[in-house]
């Protein structure tokens, strides 16, 4: 097992994610991030601990609430933000946005929008990587994902074939508005265990606890002992998606949010770092984020003529002309700003 990183390193990661998400909310408000985002504020301890336990060449599949995973794995904040704002300088050249990004240079192989389906993709990836070395694959998903049959199928495959994959469940208590107990008969860990997969439930608010549990699971996978699942109990302080800032959804009590705020991963980790060190880190992060925002907003928007690029690796001719001018688009009048960025559900 690799040595646990210094407390300051975890603090820096959590702080970076927290501030990144806050900047994103500003950019959602200004209209620069068109999708809105699924903020991971409150869950940063999981991202920090999980990713610190990985080797740079290990492979992670993220999900819709994945900004933290990218930053914790070292994705460049500028290029990542350029992606969220739909710019050609983005990690995916502006083809992914916030919902489906990947950054192979940081070991993140994608984020399927189909909740739960990344688990089997990660299983296949882990199987492939293991044939040529000792890399490990990780699939991160929420509590909502464990009711998706395709995810349960991947538990079976991973267990039967002893695939070096770690299933990470970020149980933040809700799938959009659905409380976990109303969606999950039995338990998250119990579902993995039923497939013969070692499973544990661990505090997700303390990054060092997260790290220790994750490091053990990764070691197990790398050592050839097959898959495991770690369920991290955590909480999101924000709504499911930034659209909740415009809606009143009474699915949880303010008191509950307040209770979880008392176990804020940022505060937990801050307490372990001397104030002057923290201040230096904080300052550096603001500089990094200022530069990231600048980089993103200065990066050019894609050229409509390139709309069919990257559709195929071995290109084929596509009939039907691409249409260039943005202004003349077929958007009915009156659909207005709600239409512009959608008002439905991620």
């Amino acid at each position, binding site marked *: 097992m690799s040595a646990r990183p210094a407390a300051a390193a975890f603090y820096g990661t959590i702080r970076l994610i927290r501030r990144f998400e806050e900047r994103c909310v500003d950019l959602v408000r200004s209209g620069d*991030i*068109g*999708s*809105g985002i699924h903020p991971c504020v409150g869950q940063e301890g999981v991202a920090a601990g999980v990713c610190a336990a990985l080797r740079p060449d290990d492979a992670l599949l993220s999900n819709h609430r994945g900004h933290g995973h990218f930053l914790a794995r070292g994705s460049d904040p500028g290029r990542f933000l350029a992606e969220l704002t*739909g710019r050609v300088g983005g990690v995916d050249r*502006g*083809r*992914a*946005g*916030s*919902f*489906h990004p990947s950054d192979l240079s940081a070991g993140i192989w994608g984020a399927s*929008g*189909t*909740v*739960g389906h990344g688990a089997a993709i990660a299983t296949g990836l882990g199987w492939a990587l293991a044939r040529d070395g000792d890399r490990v694959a990780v699939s991160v998903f929420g509590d*909502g994902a464990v*009711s*998706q*049959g395709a995810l349960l199928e991947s538990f079976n495959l991973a267990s039967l074939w002893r695939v070096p994959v770690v299933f990470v469940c970020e149980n933040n208590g809700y*799938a*959009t508005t*659905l409380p976990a107990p*109303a*969606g*999950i008969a039995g338990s998250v860990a119990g579902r993995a265990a039923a497939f013969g997969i070692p499973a544990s439930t661990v505090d997700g608010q303390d990054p060092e606890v997260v790290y220790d549990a994750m490091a053990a699971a990764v070691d197990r996978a790398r050592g050839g002992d097959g898959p495991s699942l770690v369920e991290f109990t955590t909480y999101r302080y924000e709504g499911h998606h930034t659209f909740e800032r415009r809606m009143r*959804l*009474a*699915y949880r009590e303010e008191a509950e949010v307040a209770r979880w705020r008392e176990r804020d991963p940022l505060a937990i980790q801050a307490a372990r770092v001397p104030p002057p060190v923290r201040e230096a880190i904080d300052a550096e992060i603001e500089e990094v984020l200022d530069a990231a925002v600048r980089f993103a907003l200065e990066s050019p*928007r*894609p*050229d*409509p003529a390139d*709309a*069919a690029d990257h*559709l195929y690796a071995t290109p084929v001719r*596509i*009939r*039907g*002309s*691409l*249409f260039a*001018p*943005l202004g*003349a*688009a*077929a*958007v*009915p*009048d*009156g*659909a207005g700003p*709600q*239409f512009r*960025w*959608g*008002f*439905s*559900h*991620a």
Partner: protein
Amino acid sequence: MPKLSYAKALNRALTDEMERDPDVFVLGEDIRFALNNVTTGLLDRFPDRVLETPLSEQGFTNFATGAAMGGKRPVVEYQIPFLLLLVLEQIANQANKFRLMSGGQVKVPVTYLLPGTGWRPGWGAQHSDQPYGVFAHLGVKTVIPATPTDAYGLFLSAIRDDDPVVVFCPMPALALREDVSYVDLAPIPLGVGRVCRPGDDVTVLAVGHLVHDAVAVADELAGEVSVEVFDPRSLHPFDWAGLAASVERTGRLVVFDDGNRFCGVGAEVLATAAEEMRLAAAPKRVTRPDAAVVVGCAPELDLAVQPSRAQLVAAIQAVVKS
């Protein structure tokens, strides 16, 4: 007269029908909080007929099949277009075949509602599909209302229909509003299209939200060419007689469809016209390109692969000239 929004029309149709028929119930994700504005108020009025589901689309689609065979009329709400691809097998190979396979013993009256098909700006490539052609191809009854009045009437008819019916509601249409008197709202039969705007020189068959764009283009071109806009409203069954009557008069045809070009609705309409109708000029399609995947998060790229008014103008002009 009150302004009725499309989303409100869906809500009203469902409420009215649940009121009228105790066998109707609704299931789906986050419907207690009516994230899509379709189920607003239903939990209070019909607490035991609103089934909040976990993320188990295949499971609850099959569940609806069973409940329908057992005498209920489920309405299943899906949050995103791709979810209809995820449950395609359950709809097309199971729900839609049980009646046949039972030699007529059972019926399967399920309504599948997608309040938000097509491009969702910002939401990425996996959230911007237009899969209605797939369902019509496989023989599943498929409707796509363009206006609030039609949304009310077609949704109602779908619920009352004794077979599985998929109701596609285009994302850009959901916020549309219309002056309607509630008393005028009524069921609209499946398979009956509508001439939205009469004209003499060319028929534009437009699907879903593009009906409004087609009308706008027709108005814009009014001095130059007289455009008839035809909205089929339901794709399967399809109002071939209605279309034929229009083309009979105009002799020219353009299809305006947000689906992919290859094997799309535009293909079917042009093929049928080529086989059966007399055309004075080669017809045209304005659609998404072949194999299109809308990137979904960069409007420049997204709009480039969706049919545009400018393309429609060009197509109409070309067809009228030749």
